[in-house]
């Protein structure tokens, strides 16, 4: 190739510069993370969330089926009994300890499948970074969704006898 022949050098150069020029007019692909965040897909499997009913009661009944289903042994659950003076969930029991080790979790979603009350759901939060292994353990308080508007926080005192089912029926209990 003769590099001194302008007819052979200039057209490719112009083609290239034209591509550059075209791109400067386009909307940029990059985003300014973390100021700007890209929405995730509908079925994205991010950090787990422990859901609440609209009235604020927790959906989790502490059955530990998620822990049993977990192939990575990332979930640890301990249950306690609900009493009317200190009620967390509508059923007979609630999870008094709920921990997920995010270093172990493989985000397979089996816990979500195993949950009989749809309490645990893989959400859209993917910002899981820690500086220490112990920070990778997400506790119940960290995983619980905030109380929805109009709901009351848990634990709460309720009228005796207002919850007599061991597992709530899957609609919002009064």
């Amino acid at each position, binding site marked *: 190739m003769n590099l001194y022949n302008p007819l052979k050098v200039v057209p490719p150069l112009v083609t290239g510069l034209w591509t550059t020029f075209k791109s400067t007019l386009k909307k940029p692909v990059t985003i300014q993370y973390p100021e700007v965040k890209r929405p995730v897909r509908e079925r994205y499997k991010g950090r787990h969330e422990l859901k609440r009913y609209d009235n604020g009661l927790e959906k989790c009944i502490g*059955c530990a089926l998620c*822990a*049993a289903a977990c192939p990575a042994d990332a979930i640890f659950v*301990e249950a306690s009994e609900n009493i009317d003076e200190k009620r967390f969930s509508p059923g*007979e029991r609630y999870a008094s*300890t709920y921990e997920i080790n995010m270093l172990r979790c493989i985000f397979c979603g089996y816990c979500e499948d195993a949950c009989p009350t749809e309490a645990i759901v893989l959400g859209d939060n993917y910002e899981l970074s820690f500086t220490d292994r112990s920070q990778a353990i997400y506790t119940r308080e960290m995983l619980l969704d905030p109380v929805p508007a109009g709901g009351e926080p848990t634990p709460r005192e309720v009228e005796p006898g207002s919850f007599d089912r*061991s*597992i709530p029926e899957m609609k919002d209990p009064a």
Partner: protein
Amino acid sequence: MTEAVENQVEEQAQPEEKLVTLTIDNIEVSVPEGTVLVDAAKKIGVDIPVFCYHPKMEPVGMCRMCLVEVGRPVFDRATGEPVLEEDGSPKIQFGPKLDTGCTVEVSEGMVVRGYTEEVVDARKEVLEFLLTSHPLDCPICDKGGECPLQNLTMRYGPGTSRFIFDEKHHAAKHVPLGEIIYLDRERCIQCARCTRFQDEVVDDPVIGFSQRGRSLEIVTFSDPGFDSYWSGNTTDICPVGALTTADFRFGARPWELKASASVCNHCPVGCNTTVNTRREAKSGGELVIKRMMPRQNEYINEIWMCDKGRFAHHYTQSEERLTQPMVRNEVGELEATSWEAALDLVAEEFKAASDGLVTLAGARLSNEDLFNIQQVTEKLGGKALQNTHMAGGELVASVGVGQGSNLSDLGEGDAILVVASDLEEEAPLYWLRIKQASERGATLVVANPRDTKLSSKANYELRYSYGEEAAAVMALLGSISPKTPGESEAVKKLSRGQEVKDAATAISEANNLVVLYGNEGTGLATSQSLADACANLLVATGHVGKANNGLIAVWDKGNTQGAYDMGLVPSEDLAADLMSAKAAYIVAADPAGDDATLAEAIKAVEEDAEKFLVVQELFLTESAKLADVVLPVQANTERQGTYTNAERRVQIFYPAVPAPVNVHADYAVAANIAERLDLKLQKVIPAQVMAQIAETVSDYAEVSYTKMAEVEEQWPIISSEDVFYGGTSYENEQGMGQQLQPASQGGESPALSFAQVADAPKVDGLLAVPVTRLYDRGSTVVPTELLSERLTPTSVVLSPDDAEKLSIEPDAEVTVKLNGTETKAQARIEAGVPQGYVLVPRSVGIALNSPSPVEIKA
């Protein structure tokens, strides 16, 4: 396969039993006559699913789950010959309907089909029907994961239901049957296993069915609710999660639990148990004992255990446990120190005390501990004592029940004598097994001053006054061989009447005779003469030296027999022994807490600067508070060891949870002291201690951990594969233990001493006698909060007549003046108490070692 199975079954069968051959699912099997189909199928590994049937109870055929097709061979009426098919095989006539496999007994040539479409459909329908009123709250049910209904639904059930969900039956879900057992009425499938167990097996009919049909529900009619020492077993055999214990309620899911084998040390039966543990965040990541379950051993506890054994394990993980060795400093306070410093000091003081060392060991310790402690004491020439008020350990070693004994073998033609024992309170499992033997036809003779729960099963009931225990046995002996010397007034009086003569005849004519003596109203001296009398009776009637014959002492503690075997003897006067000691080494005993007079003796030891007191304990007991050195030790759930039960079966328990840091087992502590006294004892592996025991103690020569860990095939089969039979009792994979041979079985003629027969002590006023209550206030029971309401209060028990004479109201507070001390106690009034006597329960706050005069003031 069929042949092998046949042989096996034949081996198990008793020789006189007639075998019946039948075909189940094309497999031929021979079983003893009278076996029901479900059991016969089980023997060849064919599952006929059941809910209401339980091999330990009478069949009722209520749940209809075991429906199978049953066919019988057809016989020609004229000739009596079996009718043959064209191909020469016998013609089988099947019933028009399905039969329940749990109620149909096997017959020759029977053909059973459990796989036909009709059977499969029937099972589906039964399950579908059961599930119409079952809440399906498996995710939160304590039984979920080990639930027969769940398992059988998965295996045999329909995939869907035709039932309209909205019409589902709802019932109360949280019904406390007392504070120990909870009932979920919605989960109940009305199989009646629990009510039948309470009624048939343990004779405590405190729960039952009320209403009918869909409204049928379980109710308790006792106060307090479900008032039975056996209530926990109903939660095991419940095929659903209807009955659960308050202790384990929502504690963990069954699949999360780790299981370790153990042996209960609350009483001398030595029930095999399984300790279920789990690591818990709320306990700071520690491994925690979640529940105690029975482990099958058909020689000992079958598949049952009492509620004390089941629930009173919380002491092992109590916050009050000692974790550091402590030494009394210059200011007179106990101060934590290092093991080195503490042990050096102990060894130095022991050396200085030399033969002035007095060792007092409690019999909740294992054989290994007791051996090492005894060796340390022997090395210095000191006195090795054990903390018991029951004598006769040497006699049991000589004329105890023979090797190969099993109380379940006793039946028709055999006799059992129970003397001076409220058996259900002292050793619940012995009560159960003696009761069952009596139901199988064994002649039961009960000698006791008052009615006990066993009385209703007695063929002959002998009454005597407290203090005449030995005389009662001698009266029996006198009726058999009249030349027995030493007639006392009491013997003469008790020999009158036909009942004694009949009982004596039954005893002397029995094929096998087992004598159990307890500690109802006895002190050390009376216990010794009672044991002598029992041994004499056994020898005179020739019932020694063979299996299912001999003496069983219903000891007051778990390993008293082991302590006797290791050479520890009871003290006749503990206070004097302690006072005379230059150094006292108290292990697993709390004399100061038990008895005010002993507390004085220990204080005297403590105050004397020359004298030295070492207490080796789990807790900072009253005695430990007075000690110069306190050494912490491991609980039995944290280590390995062996216990010897009252039938002299040596059994291993295994560690279930890790021990607290820097806390060692008793045998290791004793071995460390020994090391400083130039005595080499094993301190690392308990099996090595046992090897040393085998060398030193002749009776234990054959004992080894390997042999104790051997298992046998047991019936009923309760394997991990088994999903419905025995509830959730655990299979025994860790060993049946090893029964020791009594000297008389080895051909040695027993050395008997003549029983010192005393007449009943005569007092002007009331006589206080010690009795045993299962739920006492011992340091291993009190930490279990669940039982707190059922524990025996500090109380005395009076007869109604005496109460009226003293104008004492039931449950009123009275002052008890006994042996120079005054105690406030609750006065209980029981009809069975003989007039003139006051029963004082042991270990509830009033010290009483032997019958003593008492004054009661309202």
